């Protein structure tokens, strides 16, 4: 087993005590040294994926192959026609016979035209196949990434997913674009040449056959080592992307805290690792290719020696020897291209290993095969003895039993880590309960189709993410295709209409990159408008008003009161101002509900809520 010359970069990613992580996470993804069995497994997984992608395009591939064969034949025919012209057409013409010349000349013309047209058609066909495969794979990866549960996204860095979908696919594209042409026409040429040689003089043919043995050994050596090197190349490239994405996303903090030089040093280190990985693969290829050239040339010399000896002993014509030697030489000419193909093939399979690894991730939250239809949810929620833990971690919610009647507005109160957000994630099915059931209108949420579930239950989080595009598009995310009037109504309901109209193009204003121009509070208002527009039966608000100013919050609350009058709502808020509109308050601690009642009841008591409420009243002015 060959090892890379450098030890694995010291990333503290190797030991992960964090119990939320699953075995198939980013750290496993970063390994380049796999044992033989694991290596075979990932390799066959990636080849399987390649097969799956190419299988539906068998016809197109066959056509591409045919085009290459024809254009290669056209190329091969040229020299043959030339020799025909010299050997027969010239003497015939001297005898006054023009026919041979006309025949040979027009044959050459036809071969030239057909060969050229087929070569061009092949380029088109190959691009069609390559782009089709890429589109397929892009869609597959994108769809799969969207399907994967939040649990996965919390452990697999966004930069890594981005690198899977960008630079890894680029490696595959290189193979499909250039590699295929090379391999088919090279193999064709080698086949033709080899056959001709055997027909001409089988003994020289044997030299060629023997020369294939070291060529094969060299290829095996290359394959083994390059597998590791290309894996390393994919891994280092992913790391470089991760670092880049993180730095660019956090540019404000980088600049404000003068981290430029440190980040640059980090990035430089990763960039050097990537460079080393590239050098490794290029160095390997830089030995493999000349090795093939050497083998070919030595074979020519050996054939010359043996052939020459046979000429001396009278067993071979000089003319035949010349031809045989030229064949041997020509046989090895396309091997360089073949080496190129093999190189890009290795690079692409290493990339496919990563991509297929991502595709092999099973979503932990899966859509049911035979969903129970729930076109019009009323919004009654029931948590039936629900226990939850992240992976194998400690229990976060122990045996929670809770009924929320349709239409009730419930506020969850408690310190960080009490389990409020976890409860919200279970109701919205971002996670599945470890034990017990979460039911909506009596149906287990695991039995609902994603469409029905997401129509019925919508969550607004503290992190109000805006996509690039207009304000309108961002609100319309709540209900694609909603008419302008509805979008405006939603914006008005949360008090966002005024500031939107103040923007240069109103609802058509581009929010730029990650809402760069919109304040945090305004962003929260926009994501509120989204939820208003979605008009779900159950609305979950997880710290959704934290960045609003007081008038803004009040406005949202008034909007909420109308909105929530006929729907179920779960409100998580640190600020008790939000709690005031609730019908019911649940105080949570360590995953258990310790107080349950109306705000007034609880405030009048002497429990946790009463204390919080008193403190809050004091803070008001």
């Amino acid at each position: 087993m060959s090892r890379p010359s450098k030890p694995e970069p010291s990333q503290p990613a190797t030991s992960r005590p964090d119990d939320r992580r699953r075995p198939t996470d980013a750290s496993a993804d970063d390994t380049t040294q796999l044992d033989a069995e694991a290596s075979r497994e990932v390799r066959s997984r990636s080849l399987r994926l390649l097969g799956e992608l190419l299988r539906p395009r068998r016809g197109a591939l066959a056509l591409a192959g045919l085009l290459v064969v024809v254009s290669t034949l056209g190329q091969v025919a040229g020299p043959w026609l030339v020799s025909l012209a010299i050997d027969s057409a010239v003497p015939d013409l001297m005898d006054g016979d023009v026919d041979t010349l006309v025949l040979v000349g027009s044959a050459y013309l036809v071969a030239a035209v057909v060969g050229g047209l087929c070569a061009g058609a092949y380029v088109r066909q190959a691009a069609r196949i390559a782009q089709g495969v890429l589109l397929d794979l892009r869609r597959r990866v994108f769809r799969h990434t969207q399907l994967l549960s939040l649990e996965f996204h919390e452990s697999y860095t966004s930069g890594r997913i981005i690198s899977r979908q960008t630079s890894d696919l680029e490696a595959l594209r290189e193979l499909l674009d250039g590699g295929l042409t090379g391999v088919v026409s090279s193999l064709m040429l080698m086949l033709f040449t080899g056959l001709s040689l055997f027909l001409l003089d089988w003994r020289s043919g044997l030299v060629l056959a023997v020369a294939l043995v070291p060529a094969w050994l060299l290829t095996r050596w290359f394959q083994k080592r390059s597998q590791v090197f290309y894996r390393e190349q994919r891994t280092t490239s992913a790391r470089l992307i991760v670092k880049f994405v993180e730095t660019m996303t956090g540019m404000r903090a980088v600049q404000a805290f003068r981290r430029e030089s440190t980040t640059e040093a980090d990035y430089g280190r990763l960039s050097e690792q990537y460079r080393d990985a590239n050098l490794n693969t290029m160095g390997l290829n830089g030995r493999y290719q000349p090795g093939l050239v050497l083998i070919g040339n030595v074979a020519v010399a050996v054939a010359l020696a043996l052939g020459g000896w046979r000429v001396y002993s009278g067993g071979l014509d000089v003319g035949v020897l010349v031809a045989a030697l030229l064949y041997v030489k020509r046989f090895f000419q396309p091997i360089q291209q073949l080496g190129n193909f093999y190189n890009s093939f290795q690079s692409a399979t290493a990339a496919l290993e990563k991509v297929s690894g991502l595709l092999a991730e099973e979503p932990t939250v899966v859509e049911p095969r035979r969903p129970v239809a729930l076109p019009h949810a009323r919004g009654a929620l029931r948590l039936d003895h629900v226990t939850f833990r992240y992976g194998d971690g400690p229990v976060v919610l122990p045996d929670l039993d809770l009924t929320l009647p349709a239409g009730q507005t419930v506020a969850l109160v408690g310190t960080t880590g009490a389990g409020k957000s976890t409860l919200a994630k279970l109701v919205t099915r971002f996670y599945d309960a470890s034990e017990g059931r979460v039911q909506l209108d009596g149906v287990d949420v695991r039995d609902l189709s994603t469409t029905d579930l997401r129509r019925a239950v919508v969550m607004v989080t503290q992190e109000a993410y805006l996509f690039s595009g207009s304000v309108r598009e961002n609100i319309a995310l709540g209900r694609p295709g909603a008419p302008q009037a509805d979008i405006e109504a939603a914006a008005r309901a949360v008090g966002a209409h005024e500031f939107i109209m103040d923007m240069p193009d109103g609802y058509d204003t581009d929010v730029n990159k990650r809402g760069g121009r919109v304040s945090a509070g305004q962003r929260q208002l926009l994501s509120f408008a989204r939820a208003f527009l979605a008009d779900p039966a159950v609305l979950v608000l997880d710290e959704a008003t934290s960045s609003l100013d007081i008038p803004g919050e009040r406005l949202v609350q008034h909007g909420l009161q109308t909105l929530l009058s006929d729907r179920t709502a779960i409100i998580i808020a640190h600020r008790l101002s939000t709690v005031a509109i609730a019908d019911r308050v649940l105080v949570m601690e360590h995953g258990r509900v310790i107080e349950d009642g109306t705000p007034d009841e609880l405030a009048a008591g002497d429990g946790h809520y009463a204390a919080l409420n008193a403190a809050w009243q004091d803070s008001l002015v």
Partner: protein
Amino acid sequence: MGSELSTFASVRRLYPYVRPAMPRMVGGLISALGASLAALAIPRVLQTLVEGPLAEGAAAHDLGALVVPVLLVLGLGVAEAGLVLLRRNLVMYPGTRVEAELRMALFRHLQDLPVAFHDRWPGGQLLSRIMGDLGLLRRWLVFGLLQLIVSIVTIVVGVGILLATAGWLGLVYLAGAIPVTVIAFRFSRRYRVIARLSQDQSGDLATTVEESVHGIRVLKAFGRGRDALDSFTDQAEELRRTEIRKAGNQATVTTSLQLIPEVTLAVCLVLGTVLAAQGQITVGGLVAFFLTTAVINGPVVDLGMTLSMTLNARTAVDRFFEVMETPNPLADPADPVDAPDARGHVELRDVTFRYEDSARPVLEHVDLELPVGTTTALVGLTGSGKSTLAMVVPRIFDVTGGEVLLDGVDLRRMRRHDVRRAVAVAFEDPTLFSASVRDNVLLGVPESGPDAVPEAERERRLHEAVEVAQAGFVADLPQGVETRIGEEGLSLSGGQRQRLALARAIAARPAVLVLDDPLSALDVATEEAVTTRLREVLDGTTSLVIAHRPSTVALADRVAVLQDGRITAVGTHRDLLATDAHYRHVISSLEQDWEECAEHSDREDSEPDQTEQAQTEEVQR
């Protein structure tokens, strides 16, 4: 050829980066030429040897005559392999070195460019430049460029030989070069446009991928995975069409580069046969002509590929320099004022700020003084310009009018590094990096460099900052302060992240501290604890605290009210509460109080704020 020249001029901008690598590149070029020379020589040598000395030796049955030819062929063969090895090894170092240099130069420039640039440029576009485009350039440098030169040299030399030896036939062959040149010229113009389009589109696609990953929670919460996939598919489909169009272009040029020379050869074949029959050219001369054209045709066909590779590289260079040549409007001054230890007196004088592409200023004629050691709360409605004002103080943004003074010196006359050492910020979106808690908190406390802080002091600050920000939860993390957080580590709740961002700003021990709504995500109890400790720490530090709530205002000695980009009042919380209607409107949580205030203001203020009135109505309804 204007376009070629401009491609040359465009690529020439790389010269400063390539210059150190020039000796190796030239060496690589010489080896490449040598290798192709050896490759071309071998068949010729074979033929001459076999027909000459070998045939003579055979006649004389002299085995010794075989030794020299075999050794000669072997020598040439080994030389070819050796030269290929040399070429690859010579160019791979400079190739990857130049790539790494360009990458680091781009990264450095991106870090230097102001936040406003990053708000404007989508992440995917930058990513595709720093990974995809630079990778393309590397491949072109180590392969395409040499190939292009070797091809052109081979063609020119070959055509020269033809003209010198074959007379008329050579001229006919040369005539074929005219349409080839015209087509290649037109191709490169069209191809360049498409190549640019395709590279830009793949950048856009990368942006969509990035957003789909960063915004996964929103997409999941609204069940919009399907729509995201659809619009991603549209974009990917568009890219596919562009790529196929690009391939179509390439197919045309492949066809012509293969077809035209071959058709010319068909003409030559007929003409040559006639000439030979008439005895105007020897048969040997005809053979030599076709052997030479066979050598030239290979590079001509390759030219299509190397040409498109060159054009792609040129596009990559353009895209690279597009960012590199973006001037930095926020650069350090030529002769900066030294400001080793700031006292922390901040003054905004007649400050106006307008975003580049917006008509209306966000801040208008703002005058605000932050005396040394005082804490000022900045209060205003969402969108009133508070966060923008906070960005102007550490010079994340430059004012468009007026000036910001630190200890009496205009920020623009100081080094950015000095300004940001003096001013620390806690942003409203807490950005954590994939690093340990320790590294995240000590982000603004340099470990090395001119203003390095000794280890013991760093440790002290870490603990103090964690304690003040009530971030004691870090002790409960699996590895305490060494636990890796951020994207590649443990995910924290919004409140936890906010407390770490606050701790980070505190640990930097700046002369001026800017806190943008630092407590929004904290629960009441934590908020109170933070406030108490923070007051002590802020004592003696000039601070600007953006506040939405009275509890945050409680940190401040005085309050500045920001309304529609202007400071409308400055005073103590108590005074403003009594005298300023807008302030009451913004900060007061007690509904009845506030309504009273509103009525009050109606009576007292001759011109009540319009939006306020609108909102009052909204609330009273």
